[in-house]
């Protein structure tokens, strides 16, 4: 193990480490801690310029109550859910199929189709912006959740296919061969043989895509406007202009907006990291 494990070092090293560790964490998360503290302060603290002192009262319920009952925030959150969940389902479904095709079959165009997905996944958003916006307008889907979902599914399919294909390549190919000898159709092989083995990949991708899409801001701004369809990332700017300079409410709003992916991460940590670090180890 590198660096040298603390057990093999003098006892003092371990003590120092255990003191430095929490301090380093606090320093690392300082900007966030500040926002969390802001979000429970009463409005009076900000007018009295008591930014960094102790909160003069604990206003958790007042502030978060405002966010949930006196703003469009619940609306935006709900929109985010209705954008994120269908995208996850769509992108994972399409890419499981595409990944299966590219991972299992040997045919001439295979690597080129694979590279098309990989390259497309790296393309800058801006080169897609005007045509995709036009396309969405032409389909009558501008400013709808469906318009956003369709685009997100298409774009995320690139990354997901890369992921799925590499995952399937690592599965034991003999299983598929054996099934073929039994005369099982290719579609049934996908459904009954490969798909059950892909559960870890499906879980990892779902969590990752959930986070990516929940946090998307650019496409939300390009393809939607207003509380009827905008997700929470775009909504937060409207929220902030509604509560301009009311830092306690803006903080509470930001925390609410950031929470779902954070919860997802902590609940599904193993899958999340497995997805993110795919390929980081040989």
């Amino acid at each position, binding site marked *: 193990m590198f*660096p040298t494990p603390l057990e093999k070092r003098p006892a003092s090293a371990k003590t120092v480490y255990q003191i430095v560790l929490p301090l380093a964490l606090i320093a690392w998360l300082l900007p966030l801690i*500040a926002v969390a503290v802001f979000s429970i302060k009463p409005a009076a603290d900000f007018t009295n310029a008591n930014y960094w002192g102790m909160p003069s009262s604990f206003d958790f319920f007042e502030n978060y109550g405002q966010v949930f009952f006196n703003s469009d925030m619940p609306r935006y959150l709900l929109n985010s859910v209705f954008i994120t969940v269908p995208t996850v389902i769509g992108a994972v479904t399409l890419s499981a199929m595409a990944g299966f095709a590219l991972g299992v079959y040997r045919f001439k165009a295979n690597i080129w189709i694979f590279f098309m997905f990989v390259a497309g996944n790296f393309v*800058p958003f801006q080169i897609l*912006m005007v*045509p995709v916006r036009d396309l969405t307008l032409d389909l009558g889907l501008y400013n709808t959740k469906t318009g956003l979902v369709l*685009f997100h599914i298409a774009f995320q399919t690139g990354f997901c296919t890369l992921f799925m294909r590499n995952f399937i390549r690592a599965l034991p190919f003999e299983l598929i061969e054996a099934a073929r000898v039994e005369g099982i159709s290719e579609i049934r092989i996908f459904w009954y043989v490969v798909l059950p083995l892909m559960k870890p990949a499906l879980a990892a991708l779902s969590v990752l895509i959930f986070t990516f899409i929940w946090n998307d801001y650019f496409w939300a701004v390009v393809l939607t406007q207003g509380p009827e369809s905008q997700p929470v990332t775009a909504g937060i700017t409207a929220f902030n202009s509604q509560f301009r300079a009311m830092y306690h409410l803006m903080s509470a709003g930001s925390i609410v907006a950031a929470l779902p*992916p954070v919860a997802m991460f902590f609940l599904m940590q193993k899958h999340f990291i497995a997805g993110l670090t795919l*390929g980081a180890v040989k």
Partner: protein
Amino acid sequence: MSDAALPRTDTDRSYWQRNQQTLAPWLFLAPAILFFAFYVIMPVFQSFNLSLYDWDGLGTKEFVGLRNYEDLYWEYKDGDAFYTSLQNNLIWLVLYLLAIPAGLFIALFLNQTVTGIRLYKSLFFFPFVISQVVVGLVFTWFYDPAFGILNVVLGWVGLGPVNILGNEHTVTYGIILAGLWPQTAYCMILYLTGLNAVNPEQIEAGRLDGAKGWRMLWHVVLPQLRPATFIAFVVTIIGALRSFDLISIMTGGGPFGSSRVLAYYMFEVALSEYGFRMGYGAAIAVVLFAIMMVFITYFLWSMYREEKR
């Protein structure tokens, strides 16, 4: 191949049964390819085409040939917005790469086994999970000249107050620092996973040969972390060139357009109150695409070599 193993003869079976190994991949690929071609591949070409036109997004398109690119060239010559954006993109690219050594550093720091280290690792990773919109907001307050914690700290040592985001010479660096926060967390998790898989025997062998500290890291550990470094490099480059959210939230390209990058400038030209110059925007996007393409080609080439092995 396996067809020969099947007892039935070809004539007994339907067209699908005879050809399913050739047909099945296309069947499985069709929906993904359709979606991808429609929403990703085609728009790239449409943007190339559009960059040769003058278009306000509503009226008729007017073919102008390469004039949009000519205008960009003059903007570059005169040190205008396009020049600033390009320059800032370069600064982003270079400084954003600091996330890789920083991530490695934190990963090495956290690669120990004390109680609760798992939770520490998760909490260090935290910034990556949060939306860039929130990161931008958090850092805007962090830098705030009136109450930002940065100035509070600077005040303790008798410095200050500085207005990082209000100064055209510091604003880009301030935004990049905000971007480095989640990006470092990402690189950290890549390296933590990589470190987990480092071969302990090689480390021990290195120790016996008297290697430690830097020499051990450079000659024994880093070579084994190559796959992690490669991915960290890919995601950081892409992230640097994609920078949009933070700029939009923290400064809106200001002050005086000094924090624009190509991605943001393109958006401004094509879709904001500065007017709907779609063709011009497309030309900027093409330039950004060309820069990105250099890296994409390199990444694909590396992957191709891996595949061949």
